[in-house]
């Protein structure tokens, strides 16, 4: 043990950075919610994009989700973290300069996103759509934030780390891991890149990220904020600190596994789907443990709920946390997911969490923090009360509408008649039936926005009535207490964790004997750990010690989240070699040694460009490319989708929502003319559709000059493009384009062969036209093998 040295210090908190992030939160909340109302209006009235390509639903939806997550909740999270961290550690932030770099860097990233999404510059990976230069900026700014945070931990005047700080550490570490892995990509230009993952792997990595972005960006930091601000507002300690320890470790360990529940009944291996489902159900327990811990903090002070708007917002937020974390595992059960996936139910679930949990936590925190940051009183309690009720009404309208609409869609899609054929074969019927619910959703969003505007007025008046104020305190600081870093790093918790990981590897790579030895090793380590903890030779439990040493704590958090990530992703990446990418001269199924080998063709240069148009316009936002193995899906869309069909798909385009029908086997289903008419105005071919028009695609040229570069990059990722094809990419694309435009010219329609529309039609006509799971005739199979 090192000696403790107490010194009295005067500490002035850096509340300037908190105020900056607070104001940014208020401003971006307005933007995120406004864009949300606009896109909701577009789903009710497609004309609401004003006929502009930049404001079409496929582009604005990305702006809305990113603004809500990274701009609104992101800024709120940083404000809350900087405010509470300084107070819980009784120290000023380590670096004012790094704080300002963090603030302005984050705002610039948001502005860059707000510019690039409407321009159609996107990676099409949900919540990770930013193009690669902005991704680099995100990584850089996150590192600045992390350095400032951990530096502050290093100079703290409070030995132990309060539970809120643990959640912040988990957020910083995990988001860094997730963001870097999901955005591993090779640029083809300044605004375009290809993910290094393809098909099934890309889907798994993306939803490992996507799910955990919700977990570690929208949940863990907000839980940290709950653990700090709720006791402050209630003026009583958290209900159970012991429960918070269990809550934290079990939550971060389990959360990281649950990503595959976004891919149930897809081409993802069944074992990974089942694992995702199991861990999602397990997530129920820690989530509700946290919720109950929050709600019970108000024990003996429920009367405050009547009078204090801050408590109102917090309690409803925690209640929505409980509701969302009940609904999430419910939707992760495969049989429930079969009904709910791709429907509006998922949208309702997401918004219950975003508007109820995140939004109301943010509002409660702002109402509590702003008067203190400007040393004044809240301008109007009544207006805050009105905000609460209008906002609550908005959420209820929104999620009830989406529940009704979503369950109806699920039932509608799967309805079969007495002869086991589709009762409602026309997809558009279901959309038309949802229209009233879409209007109700729009009104709910509008009410929520009106409530937020009330808050903005209230907080603006509050700020104007006060004066910026930095809190100063006198603290009894401490200089190192507990074992040194290296001793702790080599101490029991970290050593036992490493041994467990090594034993896990032994269990994997060896046979029965090795597995038995490894399991025995597990038992020995558990006993040793229990004895070590029991002895408590230092007079403190190991958790006390680890809490006192932020680096060791961070290492343990990293291990906890890596276990889930590695166990899920490595087997799927290893499985790549099991899918042999064979190149054939034509799409076909070859019989080989009695087993069928599926042969997938790479995209042609024109199809590749068309795919980029599909990505750029955000088509994946409303159309899936994943037919699930259900009778009603195969009747409606064709043969179910298989993993080998996506081996050249980067980024994958499976989608997560069906406002329109699945497109995986749309190729060859309709004539080129149908696609032309549909893109000019979807109502031409699908009366009642709410899809935007895309006339601009006819007038814009695809970038054939860059096609060869894209193909070269794809070749480095494993797509077997020949040198000759790469060299003649532009000419080949033009040639294929002429086949389409000549076909249209027969109907007196003039389209340029190098237009984006031509490329998109080529891509759509290609979809699902790979090998089908039908056995060739015996004679054909023998001929393919060169036998008589």
């Amino acid at each position, binding site marked *: 043990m090192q000696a403790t040295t107490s010194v009295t210090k005067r500490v002035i908190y850096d509340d300037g950075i908190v105020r900056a992030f607070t104001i940014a939160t208020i401003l971006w909340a307005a933007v995120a919610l406004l864009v949300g109302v606009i896109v909701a209006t577009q789903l009710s009235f497609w004309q609401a994009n004003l006929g502009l390509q930049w404001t079409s639903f496929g582009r604005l939806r990305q702006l809305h989700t990113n603004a809500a997550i990274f701009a609104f909740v992101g800024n709120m999270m940083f404000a809350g973290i900087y405010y509470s961290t300084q107070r*819980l550690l009784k120290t000023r932030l380590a670096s004012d300069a790094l704080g300002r770099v963090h603030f302005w860097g984050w705002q610039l990233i948001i502005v860059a996103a707000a510019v690039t999404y409407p321009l159609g510059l996107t990676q099409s990976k949900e919540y990770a759509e930013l193009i690669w230069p902005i991704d680099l900026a995100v990584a850089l700014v996150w590192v600045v934030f992390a350095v400032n945070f951990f530096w502050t931990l290093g100079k703290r005047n409070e030995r132990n780390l309060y539970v809120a700080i643990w959640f912040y550490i988990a957020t910083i570490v995990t988001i860094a891991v997730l963001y870097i892995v999901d955005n591993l990509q090779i640029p083809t230009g300044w605004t375009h890149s290809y993910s290094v993952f393809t098909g099934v792997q890309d889907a798994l990595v993306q939803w490992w990220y996507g799910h955990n972005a919700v977990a570690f960006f929208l949940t863990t930091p907000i839980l940290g904020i709950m653990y700090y601000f709720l006791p*402050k507002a209630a003026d009583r300690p958290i209900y159970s600190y*012991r429960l918070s320890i269990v809550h934290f*470790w079990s939550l971060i360990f389990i959360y990281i596994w649950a990503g595959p529940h976004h891919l149930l009944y897809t081409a993802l291996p069944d074992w990974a789907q089942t694992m995702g489902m199991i861990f999602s159900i397990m997530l129920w327990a820690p989530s509700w443990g946290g919720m109950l811990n929050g709600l019970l903090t108000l024990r003996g002070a429920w009367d405050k709920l009547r009078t204090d708007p801050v408590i109102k917002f917090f309690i409803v937020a925690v209640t929505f946390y409980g509701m969302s974390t009940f609904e999430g595992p419910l939707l992760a059960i495969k049989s429930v997911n079969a009904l709910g996936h791709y429907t509006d139910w998922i949208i309702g679930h997401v918004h219950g969490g975003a508007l109820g949990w995140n939004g109301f936590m943010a509002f409660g925190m702002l109402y509590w923090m702003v008067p203190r940051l400007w040393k004044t*009183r809240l301008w109007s309690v009544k207006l805050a009360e009105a905000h609460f009720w209008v906002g609550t009404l908005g959420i209820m309208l929104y999620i009830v509408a989406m529940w009704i609409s979503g369950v109806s869609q699920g039932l509608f899609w799967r309805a079969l008649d007495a002869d086991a054929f589709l009762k409602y074969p026309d997809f558009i019927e279901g959309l038309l039936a949802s229209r009233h619910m879409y209007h109700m959703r729009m009104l709910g969003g509008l009410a929520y926005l009106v409530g937020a505007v009330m808050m903005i007025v209230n907080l603006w008046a509050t700020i104007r009535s006060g004066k910026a104020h930095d809190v100063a305190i006198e603290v009894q600081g401490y200089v190192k207490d507990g074992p040194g870093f290296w001793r702790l790093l080599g101490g029991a918790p970290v050593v036992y964790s490493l041994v467990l990981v090594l034993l*896990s590897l032994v269990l994997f790579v060896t046979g029965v004997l090795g597995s038995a030895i490894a399991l025995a090793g597990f038992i020995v380590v558990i006993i040793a750990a229990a004895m070590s903890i029991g002895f408590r030779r230092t007079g403190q439990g190991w958790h006390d010690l680890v809490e006192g040493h932020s680096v060791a704590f961070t290492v343990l958090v990293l291990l906890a989240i890596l276990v889930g990530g590695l*166990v899920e992703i490595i*087997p799927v990446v290893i*499985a790549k070699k099991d899918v042999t990418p064979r190149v054939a001269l034509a799409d076909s199924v070859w019989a080989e040694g009695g087993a069928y080998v599926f042969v997938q063709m790479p995209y042609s240069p024109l199809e590749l460009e068309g795919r980029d148009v599909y990505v750029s316009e955000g088509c994946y936002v409303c159309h899936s490319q994943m037919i699930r193995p259900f009778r009603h899906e195969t009747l409606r869309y064709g043969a179910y989708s298989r993993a080998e069909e996506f081996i050249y798909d980067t980024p994958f385009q499976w989608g997560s929502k069906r406002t329109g029908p699945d497109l995986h086997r749309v190729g060859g289903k309709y004539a080129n003319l149908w696609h032309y008419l549909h893109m000019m105005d979807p109502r031409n071919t699908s009366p009642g559709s709410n899809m935007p028009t895309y006339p601009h695609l006819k007038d814009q040229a695809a970038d054939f000059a860059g096609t060869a570069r894209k193909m070269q990059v794809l070749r480095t990722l494993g797509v077997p493009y020949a040198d000759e094809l790469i060299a003649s990419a532009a000419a080949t694309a033009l040639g294929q384009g002429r086949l389409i435009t000549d076909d249209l010219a027969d109907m007196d329609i003039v389209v340029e062969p190098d237009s984006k529309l031509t490329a998109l039609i080529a891509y759509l006509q290609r979809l699902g036209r790979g090998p089908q799971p039908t056995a060739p005739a015996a004679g054909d199979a023998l001929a393919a093998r060169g036998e008589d």
Partner: protein
Amino acid sequence: MFQWFFRGNEYLAWPLVGLVTFIIAFLAVLFYVFVLLRNDDNVGRMASLPLEDEADAAPAEEGVRE
């Protein structure tokens, strides 16, 4: 039943190891929290840490205008 669920998986050991690791870690945390921390005074102090922030106390009482 798990064998039926994982019948197509050549890497069965991975999820099983993950599950075992979680159960071990979870039991260890439960043991620590509910047995070893049973009479720990430090728990009470840590739980009250946000309330030690005296500088925020005064505005908390006066920070809301009726």
